[in-house]
């Protein structure tokens, strides 16, 4: 394909978009909206997965002791815990240490705790690490029954629930996105159909003077792809801005909440959206060309 031909295609594409501003705008907006929804779902699914995985790696049981437990009870409990099958290590976390940890997590916000004065609401606890995650659900109730133990918590239930939630979200997201993709496809098919109709005279003449089918198709195909691409671009810009803002505000208020950083999450999402947007544009044009352009 020669340079002047490429120039010709690009010129024709933009001329057509300009001539057809309203429909072009409608197409770009629909693509942007649909992909925005897809992008939001992707952000949510990736993040919940991240949280779930984070919790899953915590192969440990947190054993919180009651405040009334004496030093001897604590010692005895530690010994019992160490002797349980599958336990690899037991770590003591004193009330002070627990408070310090929390302060660390809060970071610059730690002055929030000033209102408590000398009060320390954190219980004495043990972090029990086990060799296999499967052991946890069997060990936890046993530990729960020990004297002086307030409660024994482990992440597994939460993890399972989160995985269930991600599954539902993913399924719902796919359904919604499919519906939106159909709507997008439909509107692009219509836009290109209007373009083809507006240029039917040109197309007829092109056929008489011996233009190949592909030569006739290219400008229409490019137009569809451009509309899809532009819509996707709008969606990625919105998602990048909004997610950045959310991260900032989450960091400011819920410092320890494990959200994924923008890099590389947004890169994946941006690429996905742009590829899908452009592909929908191309598919829409192709359908329209096959239906309305008898070349």
């Amino acid at each position, binding site marked *: *394909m*020669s340079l*002047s*031909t490429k120039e*010709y295609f690009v010129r024709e594409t933009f001329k057509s978009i300009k001539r057809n501003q309203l429909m072009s705008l409608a197409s770009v907006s629909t693509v942007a909206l649909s992909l925005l929804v897809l992008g939001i779902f992707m952000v949510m699914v990736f993040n919940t997965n991240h949280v779930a995985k984070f919790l899953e790696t915590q192969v440990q049981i947190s054993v919180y002791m009651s405040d009334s437990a004496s030093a001897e009870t604590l010692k005895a409990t530690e010994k019992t815990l160490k002797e349980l099958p599958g336990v690899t290590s037991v770590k003591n976390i004193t009330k002070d240490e627990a408070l310090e940890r929390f302060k660390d997590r809060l970071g610059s916000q730690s002055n929030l705790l000033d209102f408590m004065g000398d009060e320390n609401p954190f219980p004495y606890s043990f972090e029990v690490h086990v060799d296999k995650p499967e052991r946890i659900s069997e060990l936890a109730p046993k530990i729960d029954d020990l004297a002086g133990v307030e409660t024994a918590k482990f992440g597994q239930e939460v993890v399972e629930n989160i995985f269930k939630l991600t599954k539902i979200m993913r399924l719902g997201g796919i359904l919604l996105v499919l519906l939106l993709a159909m709507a997008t496809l439909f509107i692009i098919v219509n836009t290109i159909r209007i373009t083809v109709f507006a240029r039917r*005279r*040109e197309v*007829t*003449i*092109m*056929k*008489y*003077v*011996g*233009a*190949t*089918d592909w*030569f*006739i198709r290219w400008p229409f195909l490019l137009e569809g792809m451009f509309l899809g691409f532009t819509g996707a671009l709008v969606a990625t810009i919105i998602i990048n801005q909004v997610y950045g803002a959310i991260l900032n505000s989450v960091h400011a208020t819920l410092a320890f909440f494990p959200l994924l950083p923008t890099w590389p999450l947004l890169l994946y999402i941006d690429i996905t959206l742009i590829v899908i947007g452009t592909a929908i544009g191309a598919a829409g044009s192709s359908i329209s060309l096959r239906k309305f352009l008898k070349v």
Partner: protein
Amino acid sequence: MLLMSGVSKTYRNGSVALKNIDLHIKPGEFVFIVGPSGAGKSTFIKMLFKEVLPTTGKIYVDGVDVLALTDKEVPFLRRQLGIIFQDYRLLPDRTVYDNVAFAMQVIEAPAVKTRRRVMTVLELVGLKNRANAYPAELSGGEQQRIAIARAIVNDPIMVIADEPTGNLDPETSKDIMRIFTGINESGTTIVMATHDKEIVDAMGKRVIAIENGVIVRDDAKGVYGYESEH
């Protein structure tokens, strides 16, 4: 140049347009196709560039079996033909120059060659000074000359014209015919369907008359042979 053997066309609705046409047109010939309306002239013309397919028979253009061409090959057949219509079929939003250059752009001719060639053919049809005008600013005769320029810009081996003077007055028609004569004299075969008695009689070229889908007359130096419809 053009060979037809046993060509018939029956449309899907059952109407018979052509019946068993045998025909040979030699390179460089100027041939008029005449006959009453609905005799099958348009069908005949459209078959030459494979817009209409015959029901039976064979068509060869410059030795190429037209019916054997795939859809992908048809554009390359058309590049060797210059096609002209009664209603000019110009693009109203493009200048005279662009309308002609369009035919070269779509077959991806180099830009420099296009510029040179378009100016040459515009000069040939006497529109060099109007290159930047739009079709609507020009008379019918001038518009048809743009269409002729577009048809010959790619140097076709055969020009096919369907009633090219049908919308023009007698004087303008004569001008147009002078251009066609010039093109023919440079060696290009011309096949022209027409209702124009004056022109056919004045030119003294080969005349093929079609009636009810059958060739009823084929004279080397023929006349129109019907009452003038003008």
